[in-house]
């Protein structure tokens, strides 16, 4: 019989300790963030570093409010968001389609293999100026570079996902007279979902880079553009505002996909 001290009558100090241990990761994490922010603020105020160069949380906060109220930030955010959604959406459609086709038809996979391999390993930003030559400046260039950067990892992961499907399941659907469309919708897509989602998660990061990159060099609106704008004028504080928004956006989007991943992958024992 296990000996156990009465847990109901535990003194408050012990209960506190129990709560702490259960949430240790989160508590320390928040502490770390808070500590960093506080240190940053102090460094600026105490003059350890030049506040003009490094700014401080309070200044950034002010600038944030300022840019928000003037409407500048919301407009930039909207432009970037639209570019991101459109670009990411097209990339997902294209990437999944290519991945599925390659997964279904080995001939397609073998033919496209060298291209995909090359594009996956090569730094795709290098293609960017060519895209400008073709499409000029503006919205569609940004979308194009985003699609280009994002579609490849999505395609590669989709292919891996489809390859990971147990051929026995495919055979089962076929044995009932299922068509290729049936196989795709009933087996391949659901079974490959975890890996596809992983590809989407990676794709978010890439899409964000694509959008920012596009805006930095070939647009006149959006968060990336705004950073370059203030950067050229050496206004650190104002540069940090859109940058912070981008970071938060990226973190939130990635976490959402991660949540989706864990949700939908519940049936997997891996």
């Amino acid at each position, binding site marked *: *019989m*296990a*000996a*156990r*001290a009465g*847990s109901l009558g*535990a003194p408050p100090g*012990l209960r506190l*300790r*129990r709560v702490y*241990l*259960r949430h240790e990761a989160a508590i320390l994490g928040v502490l770390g963030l808070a500590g960093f922010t506080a240190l940053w603020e102090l460094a600026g105020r105490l003059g350890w570093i030049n506040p003009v160069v490094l700014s401080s949380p309070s200044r950034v906060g002010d600038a944030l409010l300022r840019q928000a109220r003037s409407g500048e930030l919301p407009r930039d955010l909207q432009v970037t968001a639209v570019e991101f959604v459109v670009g990411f959406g097209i990339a997902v459609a294209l990437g999944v389609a290519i991945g599925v086709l390659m997964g279904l038809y080995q001939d397609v996979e073998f033919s496209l293999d060298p291209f995909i391999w090359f594009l996956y390993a090569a730094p795709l930003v290098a293609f960017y100026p060519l895209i400008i030559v073709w499409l000029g400046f503006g919205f569609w260039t940004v979308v194009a570079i985003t699609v280009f950067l994002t579609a490849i990892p999505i395609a590669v992961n989709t292919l891996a996902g489809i390859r990971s499907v147990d051929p026995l399941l495919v055979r089962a659907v076929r044995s009932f007279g299922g068509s290729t469309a049936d196989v795709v919708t009933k087996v391949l897509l659901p079974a490959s979902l975890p890996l596809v989602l992983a590809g989407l998660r990676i794709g978010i990061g890439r899409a964000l880079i694509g959008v920012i990159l596009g805006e930095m060099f070939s647009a006149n609106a959006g968060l990336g553009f705004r950073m370059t704008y203030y950067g050229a004028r050496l206004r650190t504080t104002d540069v940090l505002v859109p940058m912070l928004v981008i970071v938060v956006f990226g973190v939130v989007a990635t976490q959402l996909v991660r949540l989706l991943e864990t949700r939908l992958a519940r049936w997997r024992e891996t």
Partner: protein
Amino acid sequence: MEQLVLDDVRLTYRRPLDDSEFLALDAVSLAVAEGEFVAIVGPSGCGKSTLLLLINGLLHPTSGRILLNGRPVAAPGPDRALVFQEFALLPWRTVLHNVELGLEVIRKPAAARRELARENLRRVGLSAFERYYPHQLSGGMRQRVGIARALAVGPEVLLMDEPFGALDAQTRQIMGAELLRIWERDRKTILFVTHDIDESIYLADRVVVMSANPGRVLEVLPITLPRPRDFEARNSPAFVEYRRRIWERLEQEVRKSLAWQFSEVAGE
């Protein structure tokens, strides 16, 4: 002079979450002579594996003493080498390199290491597999590597923690015979933890029967079956009688431990 002495050993864990105490082992006393093969059987959770960890020194008793050749055990060392149930081979090392692991820890020079490793691989019959990696071997072969690794450091006592527990029943029987063959050569002192009663009788000079948690020694049964023992020994009437006696002792404890485990899961 007994080689290994456990004197009233007790082990209590503190649960970190609510600071409550958990008594794992309760007043275990045991004396093992040099060259003896001692098997330890007991229900799950009785602490028999914990006992080996205490003897090796990875854990420390809350009270009581453990003495090897009259001197108390303080820290892990090569004189009480462990063989693990899940083999615990380093996957990135070849078989030979894995056997050398213990020798590296005790800082034997490279040439001597190689020699000793090769010799012990030969003893367990795996010389041909020197350059293989663990994932290329079967379970039985991996465990033989684990045994070679432990033997290589020249321990005074060999501590075997359900070494054949991860193997299928047929392999287990073969491995048991193999172990006896290896043991016959220099008759090292072995402490062999198992849940398999037949295995304990077949292998050991004495069988220690432990209770359900908190673990205590219920009975120590000398096994007087003649050596060398072959597969036929398992069918002899004496063998059957030993089995009956041990199971008689054990059945109650197993039932108790099952109930306890269930309440642990449900209650916590």
